[in-house]
């Protein structure tokens, strides 16, 4: 009950606060019909969802957003460098997405690209030339203009081999050059067409200030970031916290934001708290407002508490799925791979392991190579609905007969499959479900690199390959034959060791196609091929489900599901 104001008071305050920046923001009040998340128990737990849906609770109040306050956001890893040209680690991205803006943005409501720093853009018919017309009058935090020259500088910097950029996904191998057409028009030339380019533009190409880079040098810029985003850096305490403050000159909001003009929060403090139990304690004691990665048991425990509400970011790309090694017996047999897919009860797994998230549509059962909601998702590849009879039949016909211990055998060999993971939960349930169809699943839970290494050395049959991505090109990493680990010294992620010329063709064509309709179709065929051959065991989606203080309003995540748009967020009293 602590620290919650009554509904009447809140409404009154919000309406007559002259100090608020109401005039500066063209605020649409209609949008801020929020449920009584801050005001009353009962509906509070659903706050985040109903915020977006309008008003569903039993008590509805119109609340005008409040300007001011410092939002404290706890992350789980050390923030290392804030340089979008050179880095793509999730914890850094969470912070630098507030400092640096991209040219375009993906609207997750319709999966289309919308303008941000670029007002409009064209793609040439051959898919090799992109022309961007920039929004006029935008400046970086240091006052220098966001112009064609600056955009060219950014593309060249990302693709300067001497800087060994770790930013992904970028057009490595495809980027040729950039050309300043006029102060606000820039043209980017690719060596050959690259389908995921627009997605990469909306994601990893974020504009840094050339003057800012020249001032401190390429290596140190990550500690002295200068962007054009809604927040700018004010303080960095190593391994402790990174403090941002509102950019008072911010005017370049994209249309997908709720309001224009500068952000509502005065400050955002990113605190680095690696231990999950401590992060949850910090949320409970009121020290922080938002925490990343709430453990499932704490989510369940605190979900009904009116002081907190869930934050859900649904994540596209590849969910919780396991690559199945197609070169190692017995999973080299398609019947075995299909039987595993038929033999697991995904809805049961989701409710056993991620029960607390189910009512928020997070960590839901998944049946395809991509998760539903990803652009180009193929509904038709959802073929493996739970059917133990079919699973048994497939194994029987492949010659795997039930042995004395209930495990199937063929030519004196038991049907043993080694599955590794870096998280408990799903593997144990899979083990018990697959036993019912006569498969002996050997489960190993270890750290990420050992799990990958075991699959690479052919010590295991199944290894997880989740990857949050908005572009279906992610499938190439896991299924294209050129990405088989160890192949010509490569370190690819094709842990299923699939070498399928049909699939390679589809993925290559998809990566080069710029016509969106054709491209979508190519990836649908690829998904169908992957599931028909059962190269993969999809289990659930893998989303961003965590908790925040009920005071936090209008906090939304981008299309990837993990990166907050703090421009719109505000703190109720």
């Amino acid at each position: 009950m602590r620290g919650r104001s009554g509904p009447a008071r809140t409404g009154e305050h919000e309406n007559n606060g002259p100090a608020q920046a109401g005039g500066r923001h063209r605020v649409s009040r209609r949008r801020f019909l929020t449920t009584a998340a801050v005001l009353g128990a009962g509906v509070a737990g659903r706050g985040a969802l109903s915020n977006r849906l309008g008003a569903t609770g039993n008590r509805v109040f119109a609340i005008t957003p409040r300007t001011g306050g410092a939002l404290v956001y706890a992350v789980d890893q050390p923030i290392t460098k804030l340089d979008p040209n050179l880095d793509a680690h999730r914890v850094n991205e969470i912070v630098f997405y507030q400092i640096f803006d991209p040219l375009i943005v993906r609207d997750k409501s319709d999966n289309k690209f919308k303008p941000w720093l670029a007002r409009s853009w064209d793609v040439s018919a051959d898919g090799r030339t992109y022309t961007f017309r920039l929004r006029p009058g935008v400046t970086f935090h240091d006052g220098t203009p966001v112009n064609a020259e600056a955009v060219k500088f950014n593309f060249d910097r990302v693709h300067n081999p001497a800087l060994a950029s770790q930013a992904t996904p970028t057009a490595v191998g495809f980027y040729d050059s950039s050309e300043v057409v006029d102060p606000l028009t820039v043209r980017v030339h690719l060596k050959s067409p690259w389908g995921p380019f627009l997605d990469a533009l909306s994601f990893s190409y974020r504009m840094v200030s050339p003057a800012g880079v020249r001032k401190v040098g390429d290596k140190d810029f990550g500690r002295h970031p200068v962007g054009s985003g809604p927040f700018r850096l004010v303080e960095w305490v190593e391994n402790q916290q990174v403090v941002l403050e509102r950019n008072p000159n911010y005017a370049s909001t994209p249309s997908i934001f709720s309001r224009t003009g500068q952000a509502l929060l005065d400050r955002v403090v990113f605190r680095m708290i690696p231990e999950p139990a401590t992060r949850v304690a910090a949320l409970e004691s009121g020290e922080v407002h938002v925490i990343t990665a709430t453990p499932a048991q704490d989510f369940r425990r605190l979900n009904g508490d009116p002081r907190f509400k869930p934050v859900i970011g649904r994540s596209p790309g590849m969910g919780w799925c396991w690559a199945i090694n197609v070169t190692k017996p017995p999973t080299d047999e398609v019947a075995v791979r299909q039987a595993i897919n038929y033999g697991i009860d995904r809805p049961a797994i989701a409710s056993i392991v991620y029960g607390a998230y189910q009512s928020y549509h997070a960590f839901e059962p998944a049946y395809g190579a991509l998760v539903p909601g990803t652009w180009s998702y193929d509904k038709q590849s959802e073929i493996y609905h739970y059917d133990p009879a079919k699973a048994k039949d497939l194994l029987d016909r492949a010659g795997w007969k039930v042995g004395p211990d209930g495990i199937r055998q063929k030519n004196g060999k038991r049907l043993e499959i080694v599955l590794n993971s870096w998280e408990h939960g799903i593997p144990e349930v899979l083990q018990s479900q697959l036993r019912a169809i006569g498969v002996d699943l050997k489960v190993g839970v270890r750290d990420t690199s050992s799990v990958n290494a075991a699959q690479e050395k052919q010590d295991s049959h199944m290894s997880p390959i989740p990857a949050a991505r908005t572009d279906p090109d992610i499938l190439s990493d896991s299924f294209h034959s050129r990405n088989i680990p160890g192949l010509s010294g490569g370190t690819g992620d094709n842990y299923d060791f699939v070498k399928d010329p049909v699939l390679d063709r589809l993925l290559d064509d998809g990566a080069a196609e710029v016509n969106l309709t054709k491209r979508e179709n190519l990836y649908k065929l690829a998904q169908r091929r992957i599931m028909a051959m059962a190269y993969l065991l999809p289990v659930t989606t893998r989303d961003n489900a965590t908790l925040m203080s009920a005071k936090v309003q209008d906090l939304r995540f981008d299309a990837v599901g993990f990166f907050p748009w703090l421009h719109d967020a505000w703190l109720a009293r």
Partner: protein
Amino acid sequence: MSAFLLSRLLHGVFVLVGVVFAVSLMIHLIPGDPVKALEGDSPMPKEQMDIIRHQMGFDRPLVVQLADEMARLLRGDLGRSFRSNVPVVRELQGAIPSTLSLAVAAMIIAATAGGVAGAVAAVQRGRWLDSMVTAFAVIGVSMPTFWIGILLIFLLSVQLRWLPTSGEGGLRTLIMPAITLGWYPAGALARLVRSEILEVLQQEYVGVARAKGLRERTVLRRHVLRNALIPTLTLAMMQFGILLSGAVVAETVFGRNGLGRFLVEGILHKDFPVVQGAVLVIAVVYTLTNLATDLLYACIDPRVRFQ
């Protein structure tokens, strides 16, 4: 004395070079691709990995890489972290004071609580106070650091709201981590002090001192405690070294920017310069702590002479 010091310091330099070389070799030999460790959220294309591998020099033979690293370290250049691009020296400048203040605070707690409890237990041997101290000591050495930390946070931060859960800055953020870290050495010291005092009490010279008619207090202070101090000091100094390098659990639970966490992050991400820098500091600390222990012996025990 000065000859002894000089030879010990020289010896120490050899130890440092050996340790750093061995660790550098080991981190290179641990399986796993250091370039792959730099991969962020999205998979990195092979072309990009090749560019990074070449720029960082990982495509050269291991011998060349190691020679290069050793030459750099001998020049006094610790390099820059692969992940953050920040010079390792600057990162160490932040981590060392944090760990040092935590280790000193934990040691004060351990020495005070452990020393007093052990002495009281010995003098009160067989009484209820002795049993209590023994129980406390057993709990101290058997409870995992991690668990004590979480319990303290739950009690003092979430329930009572007296102290912040984590972070650094001032005494308030030092209390819980210091108790957490000092808990084990306090238990260990209490047990040792108790058994040492009991052993000394059996010695004939204690009987002689008593026979001389000295007061019990004087006997304890001048003859018993002083003699019981030598093994205790060895343990305490060893514990101090462990506290400096092994505080990683407490540092993680309380979100501190310490040396232990710095090292573990470096190992996990195969950040070679970070590992080398942290190991170098820890090796220096161990060498100096050992030397200081030897010097302290001479102050306490007049029989000890340097040669």
